[in-house]
């Protein structure tokens, strides 16, 4: 009947107890929390952080791993030029003269040996002129077979040798006589017998070594300029001081222009430049640039004149400036080239509110996506920790006895695991196994949760142990209340406040741990971002001192978020504290 009067103050006296509004403990906690300015500040910070991280990503026009590029003229290496002081080898087509044998040849040249061996072969070395050597090798040219007293000869496919009647006769005589050598057409041939087949070898030049550099005048002359026969003929003529030579039925002549020798082909009376011979090696640095012989001569002349800059007219008729830098005997030619580059370290603009980072990604967008991961890791880990802590601590505290002892010793064991070494080892293992970045985050969550539940288990156990001895728990026993009700109606509601505070406080800690791990490169990996991995950029002194906008905002976000969680945690603790009446 009294309850019906509730709220109608008219029938109640001023000092009537019913005028006092009834508040449940939950409401009281809420009211106390709301009155705490610091806690509300923390809550506002957290709301802003959540909005920034979870909604920000939806509004950001960019994705987290989007790389920005722009066009820029940069001094790009155009060509390098080297004074050639080494013997360079030209190998006959089809002949075998491996690069490794070059060293043996060089050794033989300096020692003046007439031959050298490489592998199981012996090569002969002939000095044909100043800095001009030919390397000879016995090449199998003809195969001889004696089948049923019938003698046959066949030229080896690759060799250009044609069997003359005089050669055939000499060969047959030599092979039937079992001679090792025979002469025919003024040349010496070697015979190697192997049963019914014999091989006839002839020593021929397979390579030449010279210090001259041949550059084709135009791309179409590339083949001829690198041809062994052409070079051999040219070098032979040069060493003999001739001004012309013939090769492959054509006549070539020399002409010295600006220190380079230009080789011209006589084509029906007109001289067509084929290649240049020089002592400088000019090579293009970019794949798409073909340096013509003229360009090369220009570069060479500029270098010979000890110039640091020169100008070439390009195909469109514009003057292109080149710069020459010298390092030892190597000259590098650079020119301004328009190219597409990644927009790195761009200072904050309207398009990129916090600039771009070293990968050319928008820092603001990465902060948003990074916040998602940082906060999510925090929540999942705390949930995992708290869940494990409640189960283990609850069992331990409620049942006591040997179960309690066993679980608590297990907790001690867990606390003995050194946290950072273990996490570092797991991080390294994950690096080695090249685990997908997203899976990596889940593994990180699991590891942090599994390593962190012990403190919560201890708190829960302690709380339950103390509650178990309280008179109201004895009273539930005396009134015969069943176990499930005891646990869920009496124990859990009394442990909950402490757990909420503990969980809120540890959220900040987890976020810091995750940031630390990511900072050390063990946590969240590129292309995914987390606040810790963004700060990682500050390990580079150049970035730390020059590009504040890359790492300061991430640091501020971590500080603010942790501060927010701690304020809210403190506020909750004060609100739950029954000693704080109002």
């Amino acid at each position, binding site marked *: 009947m009294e309850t019906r009067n509730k709220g109608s103050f008219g029938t109640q006296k001023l000092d009537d107890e019913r005028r006092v509004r009834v508040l449940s403990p939950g409401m009281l906690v809420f009211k106390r929390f709301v009155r705490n300015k610091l806690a509300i500040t923390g809550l506002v910070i957290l709301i802003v952080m959540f909005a920034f991280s979870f909604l920000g990503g939806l509004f950001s026009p960019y994705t987290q791993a989007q790389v920005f590029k722009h066009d820029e003229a940069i001094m790009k290496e155009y060509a390098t030029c080297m004074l050639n002081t080494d013997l360079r080898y030209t190998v006959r087509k089809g002949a075998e003269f491996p690069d490794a044998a070059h060293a043996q040849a060089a050794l033989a040249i300096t020692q003046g040996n007439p031959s050298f061996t490489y592998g199981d072969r012996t090569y002969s070395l002939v000095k044909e002129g100043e800095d001009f050597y030919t390397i000879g090798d016995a090449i199998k040219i003809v195969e001889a077979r004696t089948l049923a007293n019938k003698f046959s000869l066949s030229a080896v496919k690759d060799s250009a040798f044609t069997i003359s009647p005089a050669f055939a006769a000499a060969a047959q005589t030599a092979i039937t006589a079992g001679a090792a050598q025979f002469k025919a057409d003024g040349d010496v041939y070697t015979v190697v017998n192997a049963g019914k087949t014999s091989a006839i070898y002839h020593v021929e030049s397979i390579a030449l070594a010279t210090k001259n550099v041949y550059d084709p005048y135009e791309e179409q002359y590339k083949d001829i300029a690198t041809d062994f026969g052409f070079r051999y003929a040219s070098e032979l003529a040069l060493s003999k001081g001739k001004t012309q030579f013939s090769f492959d039925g054509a006549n070539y002549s020399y002409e010295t222009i600006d220190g380079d020798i230009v080789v011209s082909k006589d084509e029906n009376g007109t001289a067509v430049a084929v290649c240049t011979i020089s002592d400088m090696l000019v090579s293009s640095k970019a794949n798409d640039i073909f340096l013509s012989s003229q360009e090369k001569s220009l570069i060479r002349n500029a270098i010979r004149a000890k110039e640091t800059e020169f100008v070439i007219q390009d195909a469109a008729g514009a003057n292109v400036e080149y710069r020459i830098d010298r390092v030892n005997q190597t000259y590098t030619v650079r020119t301004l080239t328009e190219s597409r580059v990644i927009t790195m370290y761009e200072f904050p603009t309207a398009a990129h509110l916090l600039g771009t980072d070293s990968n050319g990604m928008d820092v603001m967008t990465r902060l948003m996506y990074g916040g998602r991961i940082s906060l999510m890791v925090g929540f999942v880990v705390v949930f995992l920790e708290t869940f494990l802590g409640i189960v283990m601590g609850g069992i331990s505290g409620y049942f006591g006895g040997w179960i309690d002892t066993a679980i608590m010793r297990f907790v001690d064991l867990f606390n003995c695991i050194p946290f950072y070494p273990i996490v570092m080892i797991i991080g390294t293992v994950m690096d080695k196994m090249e685990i997908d970045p997203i899976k990596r985050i889940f593994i990180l969550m699991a590891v942090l949760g599994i390593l962190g539940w012990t403190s919560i288990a201890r708190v829960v156990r302690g709380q339950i142990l103390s509650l178990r001895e309280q008179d109201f728990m004895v*009273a539930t026993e005396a009134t015969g209340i069943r176990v499930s009700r005891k646990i869920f109606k009496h124990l859990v509601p009394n442990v909950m406040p402490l757990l909420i505070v503990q969980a809120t406080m540890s959220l900040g800690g987890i976020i810091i741990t995750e940031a630390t791990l990511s900072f050390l490169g063990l946590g969240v990996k590129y292309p995914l971002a987390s606040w810790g991995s963004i700060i990682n950029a500050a390990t580079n002194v150049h970035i730390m001192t020059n590009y504040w906008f890359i790492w300061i905002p991430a640091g501020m976000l971590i500080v603010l978020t942790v501060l927010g969680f701690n304020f809210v945690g403190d506020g909750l603790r004060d609100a739950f504290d029954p000693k704080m009446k109002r």
Partner: protein
Amino acid sequence: MNGQKRANDEVVMEVRNLKKYFPIKAGIFGRVVGQVRAVDGVSFRIRRGTTMGLVGESGCGKTTVGKTLLRLNDKTSGEVLFKGTEIFELGRSELRHLRPQIQIIFQDPYSSLSPRMPVGEIIGEAVREHNLVPESEFDDYITKIMRSCGLQPYHKDRYPHEFSGGQRQRICIARALALNPDFIVCDEPVSALDVSIQAQIINLLEDLQKEFGLTYLFISHDLSVVEHISDTVGVMYLGDMVEYGAKEDVFAKPLHPYTRALFSAIPVPDPTVKMNRIILEGSIPSPANPPAGCKFHTRCRDCMEICRHEAPKRFDAGNEHYVVCHLYGK
């Protein structure tokens, strides 16, 4: 009042030679190295509708006796018969059914109420658990109980922190009473309250006893309260019940030297009376290592040679007045 009570001779609670030792464990394997003899051979019987006062110093085992009667502790030996049934022989479900009939009121009204439960829920929880009243009458029943304990029905939705100590103790009494018990152990129910509230609670307990025919075991160290409320009195010293008898007999003619020393400390509200106090030397010995012979001999004024070696036997001084002392019976 007393005559009325005596007429009913049904023994509600009988305790025979009850012993409760707590083991002292030591070492990593929890080896038992000794025992605390909290209750060391206590016997008494309480008749329906009467109150037995249990007095003694702190740590003499009063509360252990009380808790053992509810089987909140295990016993070491002896018998606890509730209406002739040994409660330590009951199975789980039998015990659960018996629970409502024996209730307890704790000393500290602050820790005996769950802080996160409204009062109505605290009082009615076990009633619902045991289906003592139909669901339709539940609210009225709780209201009735709260009224008889001096609580207002609108208190139902409030939480314990909004109540004073006296009101909380009323809630505790209501919680016990709601189960319609036969026997209530009052474990120093008023010692945490101030004197005016003490009187209210004592009167409430007496009124409820009359109304519902309750039987109390009233544990206290406050002798005047015990003198006021009890019909029989037991005096405990170091786990032993040294004297037991009707209140009139024990208070008028205390036999045991300890009882006499205890009673000499009751203040008399008259400044002209010269109090003849018996001051006990020393402090109570450890129940883990009680003295040989009579446990009280180390502090007894009338200590004799025999007291040091031989434990005294129970002496019946007539009218169910027992004393355990060598001064008598030889």
